[in-house]
């Protein structure tokens, strides 16, 4: 019984970390219809900024996180204006080629500027060490990731479903020209959503750095995982992504505990099964 609880806790924590890192991609792919393979690259930029701020400038963790999010968004603004704007509404293949190109450029630059070694983001004392849950101990930063994941999920859901901005965003996504005719500044809506998605990527990169360490190949190494989460959850759906992360995190963790030799067999088996039954993902919208 204790083992079951243990696995459940690990699965929940892993799922939430996955969620925080992947949700930004769900926003770009589902709401903006851009297959953004550079998502991992933005997460990596966030990680590098936070690492640099914390290790070389000696700033606190909270400041480093904030700086990572803001800094990544600032870096992303010219990229959005000059490159991404051309591929909104373009065929998927064009988007894939362009964003994978951006990813390779960022990998090259990161390798050149920061070198190929691993970078860490030192945690504040409050997040170090482990907390005792009575029947086992768990790293405090995992609990922190769970809290952050829930907060991000709640915040995004509220912003998209309940606010005027969310209404405009959904309108622009469903029919850009009609929304524009009704006086919605779609360009600004897109720019803001892109900034939010990039900011979330950076936040996820920093928060997940304990699990997925920051190094130049981060951008490609974990890309498949991010894409799987989005396609299983249904692009653009916050509850869908949350559900997908928890289900996949659970299956992956249980499989790894009980039958590590099988590797990610169960993970991908679950992905195939879910996609067969729900081709648009667990909570995907029909077009």
């Amino acid at each position, binding site marked *: 019984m204790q083992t079951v609880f243990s696995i459940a806790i690990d699965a929940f924590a892993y799922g939430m970390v996955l969620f925080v890192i992947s949700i930004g991609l769900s926003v770009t792919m589902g709401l903006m219809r851009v297959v953004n393979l550079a998502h991992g690259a933005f997460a990596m930029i966030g990680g590098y900024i936070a690492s640099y701020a914390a290790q070389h400038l000696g700033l606190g963790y909270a400041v480093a996180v904030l700086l990572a999010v803001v800094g990544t968004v600032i870096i992303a603004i010219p990229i959005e204006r000059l490159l991404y704007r051309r591929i909104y509404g373009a065929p998927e293949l064009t988007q894939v080629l362009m964003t994978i190109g951006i990813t390779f450029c960022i990998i090259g630059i990161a390798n050149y500027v920061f070198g190929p070694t691993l970078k860490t983001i030192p945690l504040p004392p409050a997040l170090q060490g*482990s907390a005792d849950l009575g029947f086992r101990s768990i790293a405090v930063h995992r609990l922190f990731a769970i809290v952050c994941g829930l907060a991000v999920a709640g915040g995004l859901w509220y912003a998209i479903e309940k606010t005027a901005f969310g209404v405009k965003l959904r309108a622009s996504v469903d029919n850009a020209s009609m929304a524009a005719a009704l006086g919605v500044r779609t360009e600004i809506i897109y720019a803001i959503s892109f900034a939010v998605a990039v900011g979330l990527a950076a936040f996820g990169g920093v928060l997940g750095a304990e699990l*997925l360490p920051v190094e130049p190949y981060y951008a490609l190494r974990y890309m498949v995982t991010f894409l799987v989460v989005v396609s299983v959850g249904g692009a653009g759906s916050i509850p869908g992504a949350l559900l997908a992360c928890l289900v996949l995190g659970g299956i992956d963790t249980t499989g790894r505990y009980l039958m590590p*030799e099988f590797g990610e067999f169960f993970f991908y088996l679950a992905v195939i099964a879910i996609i067969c039954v729900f081709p648009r993902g667990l909570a995907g919208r029909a077009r």
Partner: protein
Amino acid sequence: MKRAIIAAFAAIILGSGAYADTIKIGVVGPFSGPFALQGKNFKAGIDAYMAMHGTTVGDDTVKIIYRDLPAADPAQSKALAQELVVKEKVQYLAGFYFTPDAMAVTPILKQADVPLIVMNAATSAIVTKSPLVVRTSFTTWQTSTPIAKVAHDAGVAKVISIVSDYGPGIDAENAFKAGFEKEGGAVVEAIRMPLSTNDFSPIMQRIKDSGAQGVFAFLPSGPTTLGFVKAYNENGLKAAGIKFFAPGDLTQESDLPALGDAALGIQTTFHYAVSHDSPENKAFVEAASKAIGNPAELSFPSVGAFDGMNVIYKMIEATGGEQDAQKAVDAVKGLSWISPRGPVSIDPESRHITQNIYLREVTKADDGSYYNKEIQTFEKQGDPGLAAIK
């Protein structure tokens, strides 16, 4: 027709070798991509050797030609080696970070009349594939066997083995198991996890549930090692007194700054620590640091490359610059010298390097940096893996 082409090949190679006064050495390694750091270390070791010993042997000038092979890719490795032999007319092939890449090259050596000096690839079997292979690095068997004795001496009787599911991981598992059972210990469980594992918490839970007093681990250096060592600490295994044993790949110097306090006290066995205290190593580290630029990036492949160059220089000396692979290899059989890692020799039978294996503990230096402190020496270790595969 085929025979004629081969004859033509041989004629070109032999003909050019005899009159060449520039001796070319083709070095294949990962100089870009995720393993670029290891390739950089190859280059640093080679540059350091040539800075210390000059770029000429007798009347011949030595020239290194690098070829980039970013990831393990046997077909590409063979293509690069052929290109080096046929077009660049190299007299020696060297480098090779990954086992499959080195294996792919062994069939062409005899025909090309070129010796292969393996500077890293660590699977025991490579040297058996061709009599023209010499290795100056280490094997996973060689570095993983002594840790079994360390574990036993520390009073641990039951160990769980956790390795990444790929060639060297399986080698490490077998080496440890063989060594540990010989000492009278028991491996209670042997788990192979996929290379792409990110979250190690379930594995840690598994270790706890197994009731083992110690864990033997092998993972490729880099991000996975960092995740594993952190999970070991965070899940309370360290606090529970479960001991951690591993070969030195896990605590390679370039990863130590990232591992930080999490790695403190971890004991590993390996053939080289950058901190090794000897005048030879001091000179080497100084030259190699200069070559690599950032001393924090210096790690074990550099010493394999450094000693590989020493072997090649001896070969050139023995053959007088003529192309004769068998004579060159015969000349270094039994060769012994003082390497930056300590006294080493080339075993005449296996053509693999016999060397000291050191037990090291990750320690914090006075200036706050971390290093592998050597605390015990296992002298003159051969490769137990060769006996195991026979």
